[in-house]
């Protein structure tokens, strides 16, 4: 599903102080596979996620997702690709604090052209999968950290993406909530979603489902 070939990312490329964030990365991820990108801060995990998600362009190299050359997508197409194919889960949740859980979850579907009925049905379904249905009407600022993360999961699932990208999803969660998050990931894995998680949380070293750990260090895959 995902082929990454010779990806390099250099920040401040034409200055006296260039930073080589990714060095000649090659990686293949099959459909339905779960990959854990592990490594300390600054090892290049988030940069790699951003390039796979077409949030950023590499300095050189190719990223192909489902036969689509995403590393070269013009902005207009990159936005459509993200909206259609990817569900994002972030460390800081990136939710709209003053809106309710349901409103946050349906937000990605508003430009989809679906009927409100269908949007609500999909939102209910993804809130149920993420285990946040009981808080549907509450605003985000009334939720705990774990509940916010479950709301973010529901929002990521509502467009039924093939690929789920999580960037340090448990960094702001306690152990119990981190375990609950892993439980939900297990369910998503069973649903056949391709999952990529960038994390340095040791809980991800032994997951209850088949997964591959890819270790990164100084912008290089080391294992």
């Amino acid at each position: 599903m995902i082929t990454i070939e010779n990806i390099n990312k250099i920040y401040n490329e034409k200055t006296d102080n260039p930073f080589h964030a990714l060095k000649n990365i090659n990686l293949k991820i099959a459909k339905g596979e779960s990959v854990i990108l592990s490594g300390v801060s600054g090892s290049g995990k988030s940069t790699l996620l951003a390039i796979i998600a077409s949030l950023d362009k590499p300095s050189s190299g190719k990223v192909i997702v489902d036969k689509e050359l995403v590393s070269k997508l013009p902005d207009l197409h990159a936005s459509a690709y993200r909206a259609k194919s990817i569900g994002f889960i972030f460390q800081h949740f990136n939710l709209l604090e003053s809106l309710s859980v349901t409103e946050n979850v349906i937000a990605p579907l508003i430009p989809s052209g679906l009927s409100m009925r269908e949007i609500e049905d999909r939102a209910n379904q993804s809130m149920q999968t993420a285990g946040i249905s009981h808080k549907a009407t509450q605003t985000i600022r009334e939720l705990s950290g774990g509940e916010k993360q479950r709301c973010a999961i529901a929002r990521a699932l509502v467009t039924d993406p093939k690929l789920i990208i999580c960037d340090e999803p448990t960094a702001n969660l306690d152990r119990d909530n981190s375990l609950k998050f892993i439980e939900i990931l297990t369910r998503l894995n069973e649903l056949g979603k391709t999952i990529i998680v960038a994390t340095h949380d040791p809980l991800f070293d032994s997951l209850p489902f088949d997964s591959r750990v890819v270790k990164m260090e100084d912008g290089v895959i080391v294992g």
Partner: protein
Amino acid sequence: MNEVLLSNEVIVYLLSEALLYLLLFLAFMITPMLIKRWNFDAFTSEQFTLEKRSYLVMTIIWFALILKILLLPYFVYTIDRLSDIVPGAMCAAGIIKANSYGNPLLTLKITIIFLGALWMTLNRLDLQAKEYPYTQQKLWFFISIFVLLSVEFGLDILYFTHIETTNPVTCCSVIFGQTAGMNDLPFGLDIHKLLILFYLLYALIVCMTFMEVAIGVFLSSTLFLYIAYYSVVYFYGTYIYELPTHKCPFCMLQSDYYFVGYFVWGLLSVGIFFSVNYAFGKSIFAKEFLLSKKLSLFLLTLFILLCSLYVAIYYLKNGVLL
């Protein structure tokens, strides 16, 4: 210093033109490198850098061209205001003829606006595709436009520095009025035949657009622009001024006539642009520019109605035609 160059409008106009020219010059400086090294199939660091740089250059060009479009009516407004300080001038018509640079400058500006708008269409098509298929073409197209922009900027300077406030210029009644003679109409037409041609060409544009004959739309639109100009100046304008001897394309831009000239000429030129744009997309890129199609028909119909309305209102009010 020449009094004209101290006019607020001229200062603002020339400064804006200079800034835009500078921006476009910067874009132009990068263009040859982009053309030479562009290779979309490469995944090298250089190609990724070129793609980012190309996006920046296109954004600069797009922004500058949009402002150039807005500057055209401001240019007309500026020269209209100069009629207050140039002896003999009643409106922009006298000022544009104040020296030999005026008419070529106005013609060049209109040409650049049309070409610039077509460039923007090409740019949009390029950005909508995934592989930037028209990048090379639009860069070459920009170079051609930039040559014209350079000539235009030179003419701008020459034109405004050569308007004398001591020598009287001719007013519009001399330029377009009866003293100029009626043989000013194109193809030796009289006013009745000109009007018949005016409405027939409009009908032809509508038919060609619905029949989706691109070349027909292009030819009829271009001819309509030419005929419409004469029809407005020599017929419809007299109803706007309510004076059979007043034939001028510029006076209607003044507050005395509620600035209606901006609507008349705006509807005509924008309508024709969308019409040509539709033909351009259909014939060259085999794309259906539905919005251009609808807008061209809407704007040209509005133009026809606006022109005809002045005649109808005059007739209803006075029971006679001019």
